[in-house]
Structures are given as C-alpha cells and as structure tokens.
C-alpha cells in the first residue's frame, strides 16, 4: 500500500502529522503508517519489511498450540496478554456441549488451548461461556474490533474485521508466535485496490452476492498482494453484519485484507459494546476514526467497478470460490474457457461436483443446507433467513442446520424467537462454532452429499470427504431449504402464486 512511498517517507509521515495531509492517502495507508514501529529500508524487490505494531491478537485452538510450544522452547513470554484474546471454535461440537468432547484429538487440542491460556495469562472464552464463538464474530461483538486498528489471528478469515476500517489479516503459526513474543510483525507493504460498488441492491440480493460476484470477476488470485477497499453507495448502505460478510471473503480473492471506511454505521455499532471507548475516550476515538476514510484524490494501485443494480443472487458451481455464476444462469461449459488452466480446473470441478455443463443452476437438488460460519452467522443473517422460512414448509428431503456464530448471537436470536422459527420449519438449531464450514467437529457432509452453504469455501472435501459445496447467501439458503433445489426468494413467490392460481 505504501508501495509508491519509500519507507523514509513513511517515517516522515508518522513523525510530522500536519505535513501528511498534503499527500492524499488511502484508508489502508493511514492505518499502516500509524502502526510502523521501525520502518524498512530500500525499495522495490530489495525492500526490507516495516515492523508493524499489532493492536489486537485473536486466537483459536487450531493454529496456536505450536506457537505456544515455540515460546516455551525459546523461554519467551507473551508480551501483551492484555491485547490478546482466545476462543474455542473450530473443534467445538454444536450438540450436547455439556458433554465431554467425543473425539479425543479435538478434546486434546481444546485442552491444550486452555492450558496455554492459563499458563500465559490469556483471556479465553471456553465452550459453554456466553462469549464463546467463532473468533471473527466474538471480537466485533465485544467491541474489541475498532476502526484504525491492526488485528491479526492465525486464521485467514481475519479479514472480516476490516469491515470496521481496521487493517486485519490472517497469519501463520510462526507469525502467531512472533506476535505473542513481540506484539509486532515484520511486513512488506501491500498494494491497494478499490472495489467500487455503486447502486442499489435488488430485493433478495445481499452482501454475499456482492462478494461472490467480485471473486468471480477478479479470480481467486486477483487480489493477491492487495488490500481491498470496498467503496461506493451500495457498500455505504450496508449494515456492519453485511460489511463483515464482504470483508470476510476478501481472502477468497487472494487478498490479504479487505476494508470498509468507518462511518456513522460503524460508530453506531460499536457504541455501548463492552470494550467500546467511554466518555472522553469515545470522543477522541471518534475524532480519530473520522480522519481515516480515504482522502479525495488518493490513488489506488488498481480499481474494479461493480454495478449493484445489475446484481442477481450469486452461487458457486465449482470447487473454488471464483467458480460462481448468477443463480439464473447455467453450469458453465469448460470448452468455453480460453485459459487452459481454467478449462482444466472447470473439467475437474464438474467431475467432482457431479454436474453437467449447461444445466440450469436452479435444477441442482441439494441434500443439506448449512446456515452458519464466520461469513454468515451473525444476527442479521439469521433474521433474514428466518423471515423467508417463517410460515413455509421445508422440503422433506433436505436437512437444514443452523449454527449461530457465537453463544451471544444464539442468545439474542432466541430472545427474538428465531430459534422457534427454525425449529418449527424443521431445521436443527445448534450451538455456536465453525461447524460444517470445515468439518473439524462432527458436523460433516458424507461422501457425495450436496450442500447449499452460507460459508466461504467450496474446496474439494472442505465440508467433509467427498462432500459437494455450493456457496450461497442466507436468503438463497433459506429458499433452497424450502424448494429443495438452488433457489432465490423470488422463486418462492413465483411458485406460490402458481399454486394459488391452480
């Protein structure tokens, strides 16, 4: 992002704030520059990384054990336990959570996190705790994710937190250990890409459709080396829950991070949450946050435009998130791809997915509908899905699993009676966690089972060995559970009026 500015300029910008206003900067550049502890040297390929300070480090049980092991072996401690928080999410069961975890390997990984948190003094929200849940749902709902912060986690979907105007990205286990020991990370500057979405979304078209369309447009490698900034009237109109859905899947376009400039919607969301600034701190924070949006005239390294008016519900047909089409479209014909790699990937995907080129997407019958994951398991996701299924009947051959993103979301949903709506419909109302997004717990697809999933990855075997995944929005998931085939809410209205006429 500061690719065009030399590290010397970065240091100068940080040191002399007033002069900084002369050069228009992007949101990402501002956050980056405000966290440079030691600037790198040189330029281009020879450039050494900047050392960046990390404001918030979130952890879960999967990518942390080997990092703690490394600390222990080197005789190091956690520098800032007070900027670190952990939850259990990937391995946790979503049924009978008061029972011991049946899988001994999962149980051991969870116990290892508990032991490590105890030994190093780290706050942990364990299974059964009201704040337990998916890391990327828990941070924002506690008010710990705020604009202008650097947020990291040993999890690629850390990009979720960028919805607040934070610079948030996934890191590997070695980096987890590095942050634990130093509260900083050596990082090479990223380039910036503006993704501008103008217009108004049609009824039944959501944030999930925006991001799936973006990924199909730029490809799974299109964002590589970039921080994406989502802009434009369609993004501004979105709630925080919806912005998180979009930023969450930035990684699926190959980008390290995705961001949305903070605005009144952001401030409104944070205000009053447990870790929100209070009193004078709140005023100072809002003043700083308000200075973060990209300056007029700031240059991005790349720009992409999307017309929100034209968007339709978007779904995937293949085995990477870039293999998506409009729901009203047909399964692509591999021979129509010019790029031989894309053609080969499409052929392989159709075979794995057991689909015929040219068949309408809406003819695809599913076995399972999964509503959950760090992409779409927040209260708004549950509400919009519940609004569609309420008073309607589930297709008898479809099983639907609803997994709230956190124990808190579950409680809030129950306070609104959403659990009743799902249960009356015949869906399973589960406890919080990552669940069937990646099937590290017992929630997995069987070989050959086909799933309409609100999660983020349709890789081979992602939801269970041999399982077939179609990525969809919560409203498409709900409509699909009713009709048994990939469907949008507008298909329901159409088929119901047909019934009435008959």
């Amino acid at each position: 992002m500061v690719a065009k500015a030399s590290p010397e300029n970065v240091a100068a910008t940080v040191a002399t704030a007033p002069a900084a206003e002369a050069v228009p900067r992007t949101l990402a550049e501002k956050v980056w520059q405000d966290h440079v502890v030691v600037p790198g040297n040189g330029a281009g390929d020879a450039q050494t990384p900047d050392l960046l300070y990390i404001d918030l480090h979130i952890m879960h049980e999967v990518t942390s054990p080997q990092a703690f092991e490394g600390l222990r072996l080197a005789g190091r401690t956690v520098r800032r336990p007070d900027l670190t928080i952990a939850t259990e999410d990937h391995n946790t069961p979503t049924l009978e959570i008061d029972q011991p975890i049946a899988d001994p390997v999962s149980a051991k990984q969870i116990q290892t996190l508990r032991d490590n948190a105890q030994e190093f003094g780290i706050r942990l929200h364990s299974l059964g705790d009201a704040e337990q849940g998916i890391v990327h749902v828990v941070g924002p709902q506690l008010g710990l994710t705020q604009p202008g912060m650097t947020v990291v986690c040993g999890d690629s979907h850390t990009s979720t937190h960028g919805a607040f105007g934070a610079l948030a990205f996934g890191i590997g286990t070695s980096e987890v250990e590095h942050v634990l020991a130093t509260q900083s990370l050596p990082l090479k500057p990223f380039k910036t890409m503006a993704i501008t979405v103008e217009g108004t979304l049609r009824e039944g078209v959501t944030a999930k459709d925006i991001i799936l369309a973006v990924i199909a447009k730029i490809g799974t490698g299109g964002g590589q080396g970039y921080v994406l900034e989502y802009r434009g009237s369609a993004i501004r109109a979105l709630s925080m829950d919806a912005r998180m859905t979009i930023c969450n899947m930035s990684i699926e376009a190959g980008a390290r991070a995705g961001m949305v400039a903070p605005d009144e919607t952001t401030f409104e969301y944070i205000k009053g949450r447990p870790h929100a600034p209070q009193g004078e701190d709140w005023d100072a924070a809002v003043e700083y946050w308000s200075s973060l949006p990209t300056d007029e005239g700031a240059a991005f390294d790349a720009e992409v435009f999307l017309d929100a008016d034209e968007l339709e519900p978007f779904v995937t047909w293949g085995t990477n998130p870039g293999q998506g089409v409009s729901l009203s479209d047909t399964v692509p014909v591999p021979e129509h791809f010019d790029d031989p790699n894309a053609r080969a990937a499409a052929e392989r995907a159709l075979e794995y997915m057991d689909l015929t080129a040219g068949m309408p997407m809406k003819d695809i019958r599913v076995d399972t509908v999964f509503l959950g994951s760090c992409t779409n398991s927040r209260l708004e996701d549950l509400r919009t899905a519940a609004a569609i299924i309420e008073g309607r009947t589930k297709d008898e051959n479809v099983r639907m699993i609803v997994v709230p993103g956190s124990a808190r979301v579950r409680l809030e949903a129950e306070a609104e009676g959403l659990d009743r709506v799902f249960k009356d419909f015949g869906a399973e109302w589960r406890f919080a966690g990552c669940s069937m997004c990646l099937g590290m717990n017992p929630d997995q697809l069987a070989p050959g089972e086909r799933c309409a999933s609100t999660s983020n990855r349709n890789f081979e075997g992602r939801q269970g060995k041999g399982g077939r995944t179609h990525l969809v929005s919560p409203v498409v998931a709900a409509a699909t559970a009713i009709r048994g085939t990939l469907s949008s809410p507008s298909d329901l209205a159409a088929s119901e009026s047909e019934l009435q006429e008959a």
Partner: protein
Amino acid sequence: MEPFITHTGIGVPLKQSNVDTDQIIPAVYLKRITRTGFEDALFAGWRKDPEFILNREPYSAGSVLVAGPDFGTGSSREHAVWALKDFGFKVVLSARFADIFRGNSGKQGLLAAEVDQQDIELIWKELENHPGTQVTVDLEGRTVTCGSFSTGFQVDDYTRWRLREGLDDIGLTLRTEQEITDFEASRPAYKPATLPARTA
C-alpha cells in the same frame, strides 16, 4: 533454521492450478499439537488414488514440487508448509503463490520460487519425459535447472537473505525491543484492551 544456499533433488510435476491448502493438508490433520510428523497428511485426499504422482516412483522421493499457478490459496494453516517439509520437499516452483503461504514458507525454510508458467510447462514436460530428473535450485544466482533447461526464478531479496542466513524472525525483531516499548508509550488511551475482561 538451516541456511538454504542451493538444493538438488527429484522434481515432481503437479499439473494443477489453484492447489489450495485444504488439498495440501485436509483440516482433519490440523488437530495435532506438534510441529512435526505431518508427512502422512500431505495431499492426504489425493494420495488415496494409487495413480497420484506422489504415489509413483521415482516421484515419491521428490524434493522439488513443480506446481500450477495460484499454489497455496485458502486457509492460513502453516501445517501446509510443515507437511510439505516433513514429506521431504525443499522447494516449490509455481507461477504464483498465495500471500500467506509464501510468507509461511519463508519462515520455515521452504523456498517458494516464482517461475513463469511457460517455463513451468517446459519443466513439467522434462519431468514427465524423463521421470526422476534432478532439479537444481540455486538461491544465490536465483536459477532453476532441469536437465538441459535452465531459467531464472523470483524471490524477494529479504526472504532470500533470511533463507541464506537461516535467520529467526523473532530474534531479529527483539533487536528493536526498545523501539517497540517506545511505540507502546505513544498509543492513544482509547485503544481497547482485552484485560480486564468486560462482557455484555
């Protein structure tokens, strides 16, 4: 970390694009709490097929993986790098790597070297026509040699320096601990802390 100067070993053509980390190591293997012993987990799904390249001699003894573009996409799991290393790979060649995977590789001494796709295809051809061909990767000169074919590869200078020196990142950063302490003193009061814990 052991210094990396040059490496010679059997090349393995993996003729696929978008090899994501869920394929390199499926999630079920992420439940372990150690850093080693992941060799059985590498490409576990694909290795069930006896025809899969790593199940065939002499590729099963390979140490230079030659893959299609966009290698290592998806999940941030560093286990992907551990599994490749534990199996015996020292180098992965691809036209394009996912950012997190490339970063993880550099930290673990696995060289992720960027080679143009047309050159990758020439190397694939050589490795298929002459199975067991040795590939030499010279980090000093940034060249890769396979049979009579030779070409350059890209790796950034900083990663190259650390690989050659075998340097540990944390040790390097701790040399600037005073700067970190100074930076911490300048952080605004409104920045949140996780402790003491506050809940709704």
